[in-house]
């Protein structure tokens, strides 16, 4: 097999810095397992040196069984880079917003162009791409990675080592995150940060591989019993380990301890602080011992005998010390607002979260009254988690599987698809970019092709941008009499006669027709078309022994029209659709501190946007600081849109309701990203694609129980059966947005539910459906 290359600006065993250490460890450990590993790096010796100097000779060398290729770095203008860098660093972190480039006035381009770059390395990547099995780029913010990755995007894995800092908002970073084939995260928190910054489009190509901690490799040595004059075996203490610093919140912990001792003066629980840092903490507080920097064995001893480890810092991207505590079966407490540590503790279930001083003080009390067996039980859960994510063996296993280095995977890739002479075409009334049904036809076509069928999509109306995906239907030209045909039925199709007369094997997929009586008042013309569509269904029934609907609800229509035993074939919804740039203007506009309530659907009376506006007005009166976004096409003259505008005007909430109209995917992406709640009052949805899309964006879905909605939502979202009590609805909406408990439970339900509509799941049903056609 071809080698795997690690691409990193600097490489060496003794380099400081998380990414450099990681690259060294992972590449060496993979090489030791017998994989062919190469490292592509520059002649610059380290981060601390001048980035335009070539300290080391270029060319290939062997280093501990690794082939390291070094390339010369480009000349650069360091002053310009520093100017751009300090420009970005002057932006207060609280002003950073996802999807908005903080590097304005060309500073972003400067930052990338005058970064550490190597044209020689880029050229090598471009010309030797075929020689490699995969490339791992790390970390995210250097020119070598930003400019190098796009050359080999389809073979590249990015290990970003992402932090919530100004560089993460650089458009070039978004570019490589979207473009790469896979993303390797060090922690759950990092994965979540990437999701927050770039949306769900990258969710499914990411994998948390974890970072190994070396202490797991050591056999447990004899640890000292006494540290700084304290007999550890006799003492009961909480340990705070790491840099002692204001930014690490050490002072908060000392204050909390002081408060705890004030309320419980009899307590014997001590607080021991250790680690580097200038400042001295808690000198005047009895029970607090600040040991300063301690030796490695002392540190291990402290960890192994502590009651619990407290880590109050708010800005950690990966906390090694937590893993070490878990290694000794000790539970930990971390700051609830620190994404990386809080998520780890949450996932491991081995400890507690605290935010305020009172929380921490309460925690001191809580653990002082806990039994050792209880603490040990918690600690063991942590050890279990650490085994999985911090033991090098497990971590390297995961690298192997993500990078496709397992022998079983290699076999699978080589399997060839059988070919068959048969053809199955699809016929669909309209074909447009971003349309759920159009996407569905493409997925079906791809599946058919994969299974060896010839397959094309024919349509009556085509979006000009999509002509490469489908062909225009002209009196059956190109569709031979004996080929198989899948007909997608909805309204106003002039295809009915053709498909009835088609002699070959055929099947029908029904995508729902809105009941005409729901729209007759608002749009009599549309009602007539819908009626025609339903009548056509009756005519079609005898000719289609194989049929399917998007939902059970749709199948009812089919059965009523005389179709025999239709099956359910849900619409595929994958988050990869959103691996596209986001509309930056809209992101700026919507991230202004207000809550955003979203509904996506055409402006038609049966989707009941008027009810939603009423409910929203009630919410606004009760809570304020909120905006309603209505995404969906409308025509200026359309009376329903006009009546909605009038309703909003009368309610006096013109500034709070935003009619976005029919929008591009980039803008819809922005709406989903900035929204806090998806609220539907609709009385008719044949399936409800936006409900599932909202789930991918982690929006709680709050929907009126009607038509196919309960079926689509499944265990996700929250349904209501009564539209009248607006106050109660508003209060429930408030909880969905602002009550962490309610929101968390709803979102975890939705995380399960959305998987049901993934293409790989739907494919199994499609398979069965196609087999039923007997082509």
């Amino acid at each position: 097999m071809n080698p795997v290359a690690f691409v990193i600006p600097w490489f060496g065993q003794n380099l400081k810095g998380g990414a450099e250490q990681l690259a060294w460890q992972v590449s060496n450990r993979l090489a030791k397992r017998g994989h062919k590993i190469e490292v592509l790096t520059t002649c610059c010796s380290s981060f601390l040196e001048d980035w335009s100097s070539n300290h080391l000779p270029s060319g290939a060398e062997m280093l501990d069984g690794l082939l390291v290729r070094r390339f010369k770095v480009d000349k650069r203008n360091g002053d310009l880079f520093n100017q751009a860098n300090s420009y970005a660093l002057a932006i207060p972190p609280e002003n950073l917003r996802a999807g908005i480039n903080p590097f304005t006035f060309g500073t972003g381009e400067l930052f990338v162009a005058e970064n550490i770059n190597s044209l020689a390395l880029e050229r090598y990547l471009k010309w030797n791409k075929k020689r490699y099995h995969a490339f791992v780029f790390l970390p995210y913010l250097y020119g070598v990675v930003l400019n190098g990755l796009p050359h080999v995007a389809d073979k590249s894995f990015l290990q970003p080592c992402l932090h919530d800092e100004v560089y993460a908002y650089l458009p070039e970073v978004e570019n490589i995150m979207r473009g790469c084939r896979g993303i390797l995260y060090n922690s759950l928190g990092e994965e979540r940060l990437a999701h927050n910054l770039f949306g769900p489009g990258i969710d499914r190509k990411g994998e948390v591989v974890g970072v190994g901690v070396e202490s797991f490799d050591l056999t447990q040595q004899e640890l000292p019993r006494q540290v700084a004059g304290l007999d550890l075996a006799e003492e009961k203490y909480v340990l705070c380990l790491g840099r002692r610093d204001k930014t690490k919140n050490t002072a908060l912990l000392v204050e909390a301890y002081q408060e705890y001792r004030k309320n419980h003066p009899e307590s014997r629980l001590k607080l021991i602080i250790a680690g580097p840092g200038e400042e001295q903490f808690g000198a005047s507080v009895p029970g607090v011992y600040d040991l300063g920097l301690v030796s490695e064995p002392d540190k291990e001893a402290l960890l192994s005998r502590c009651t619990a480890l407290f880590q109050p810092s708010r800005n950690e991207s990966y906390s090694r010390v937590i893993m070490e505590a878990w290694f000794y079966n000790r539970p930990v407490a971390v700051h609830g607002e620190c994404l990386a540590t809080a998520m780890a503790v949450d996932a491991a279930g081995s400890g507690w979260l605290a935010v305020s001083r009172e929380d921490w003080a309460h925690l001191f009390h809580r653990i002082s009254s806990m039994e050792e067996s209880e603490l040990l039980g918690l600690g063991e859960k942590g050890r279990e988690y650490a085994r999985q994510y911090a033991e090098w063996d497990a971590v390297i296993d995961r690298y192997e599987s993500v990078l496709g280095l397992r022998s079983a995977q290699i076999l699978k890739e080589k399997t060839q698809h059988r070919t068959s002479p048969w053809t199955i075409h699809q016929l669909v009334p309209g074909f447009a970019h971003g349309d759920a049904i159009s996407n569905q036809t493409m997925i079906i076509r791809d599946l058919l092709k994969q299974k060896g069928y010839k397959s094309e999509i024919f349509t009556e109306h085509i979006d000009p941008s999509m002509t490469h995906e489908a062909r225009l239907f002209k009196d059956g030209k190109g569709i031979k009499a004996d080929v198989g045909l899948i007909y997608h039925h909805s309204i106003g199709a002039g295809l009915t006669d053709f498909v009835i007369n088609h002699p070959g094997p055929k099947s029908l997929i029904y995508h729902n027709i809105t009941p005409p009586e729901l729209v007759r008042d608002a749009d009599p013309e549309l009602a007539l078309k819908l009626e025609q569509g339903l009548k056509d269904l009756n005519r079609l029934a005898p000719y289609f022994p194989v049929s399917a609907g998007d939902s059970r609800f749709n199948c009812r229509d089919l059965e009523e029209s005389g179709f025999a035993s239709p099956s359910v074939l849900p619409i595929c919804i994958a988050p990869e659709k959103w691996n596209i740039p986001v509309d930056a203007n809209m992101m700026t506009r919507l991230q202004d501190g207000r809550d955003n309530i979203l509904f996506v659907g055409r402006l038609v009376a049966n989707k009941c946007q008027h009810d939603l506006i009423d409910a929203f007005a009630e919410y606004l009166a009760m809570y304020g600081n909120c905006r309603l976004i209505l995404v969906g096409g409308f025509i200026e003259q359309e009376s329903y849109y006009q009546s909605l505008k009038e309703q909003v005007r009368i309610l006096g909430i013109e500034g709070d309701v935003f009619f976005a109209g029919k929008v591009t995917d980039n803008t819809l992406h922005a709406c989903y990203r900035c929204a806090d709640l998806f609220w539907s009052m609709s009385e008719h949805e044949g399936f409800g694609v936006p409900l599932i899309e909202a789930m991918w964006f982690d929006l709680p879905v709050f929907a009126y129980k009607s038509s196919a909605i309960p079926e689509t939502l499944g265990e996700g979202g929250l349904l209501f059966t009564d539209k009248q009590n607006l106050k109660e609805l508003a209060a429930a909406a408030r909880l969905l947005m602002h009550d962490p408990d309610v929101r968390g439970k709803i979102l975890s339900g939705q995380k399960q539910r959305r998987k049901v509509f993934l293409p790989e799941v739907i494919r199994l049903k499609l398979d069965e459906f196609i087999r039923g056609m007997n082509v």
Partner: protein
Amino acid sequence: MLESRNPDIDMAQLLDKIGLELRLQQKSIAGGRNRVASEELAINDPYSWGQLGSTLNVAEQNVNAGAEVTSMLHYRGIMRKIARFLGKVTVFLGRVITIPQRNFNSAILQSLRITLDGVRDMNRNTALVERQVRQIDEQLKKKSALIDYLKTGLITQERRVSILLEELRREVTAKDGSQEAPSPHLTGLDILDPLYLAFENQFRGTREEIRDRLLQYVPLMREAGAGAPGREILDIGCGRGEWLGIMQDEDLLASGLDLNHVLVQECREKGLKVIENDALSHLRSLPENSLGAITSFHLIEHLSFDDRIALFDESVRVLKPGGVALFETPNPRNLLVGACNFWADPTHLRPLYPETHQFLMEYRGFCKVELLFLHPHEGEQRLPETEAPQLAARLNEILSCARDYTVVGYKA
């Protein structure tokens, strides 16, 4: 009304939470408040001073536009050399424009920096001044409370001294064996009492008119807590008892005082509590801190300057802390009143200039002394301001303005 198939959702608990949320909502009117907050949020510029500074840095980086050729990073090898050469030629030719442009850039940038520094300084100064003003304001409040306290103390001391002097004088006179001279108080017009009643009926206006005018003082009494048990109101020169009548109707405890025997009789017939005595001797007979309010309508213009001062002094003494005193009298600012109507009453001594009146009360120990101007001419009595508006307005100002005024003061 809510449903979920999510097994983790405890529906009863969720409904409880919603109920709690609704109850909390009813208690607060957060909606309006929050909306204001959201507007404020929109006004706040997300990028602050630091951002402005670094934006200027970018301008500075580009101030020398057109002076040098860029590094042409997107070209490689020989292409890069050619590109740089062509770039140099362009730069050379472009100097005609770029040199003045660069001068302009630096000038503008320099000006912006100076302006920015100036604005920053100003902002800092404004903040400083604001803080100082707030401090001074607080100090003033404290000082004025102190002055009120000292004033009361001073008046008490003065009074004690004058009593001592009086006693001393009496003792000296007693030793001399001479007889005590009658004090020159309000002296009797007893014989003329019925005449004055007739005069009042003729000139002061009807009982109803007077009642209407007096009604507006009721809130003042209530605010000062006067008229409650232990905080009785004393009306000096109660005349026909219109004001006493009002207070009786309002359930305020009040008594009147008048010298005119006939008027006193009339009031008593109406069931009002009236004492026949002269003001100063009655007040001197009362203990300190014993009254809630002292009122007097159209009396002080009958008194000499000395008596007036004595009246204020005694009032301060007998009032309880927080008690109120008000004295209504004709307003000489109204030319008609000052020049003519005032003299309709033959017993009037002289008109009282409002600010002098206020000044005297303040300096004799009252606090929060205020002037209220009352009873201007209205409607047809005013000159129409249609034909010669400025002249009419000026005349109205001196002829139709308030006909009476009241000085209100409180005991600290």
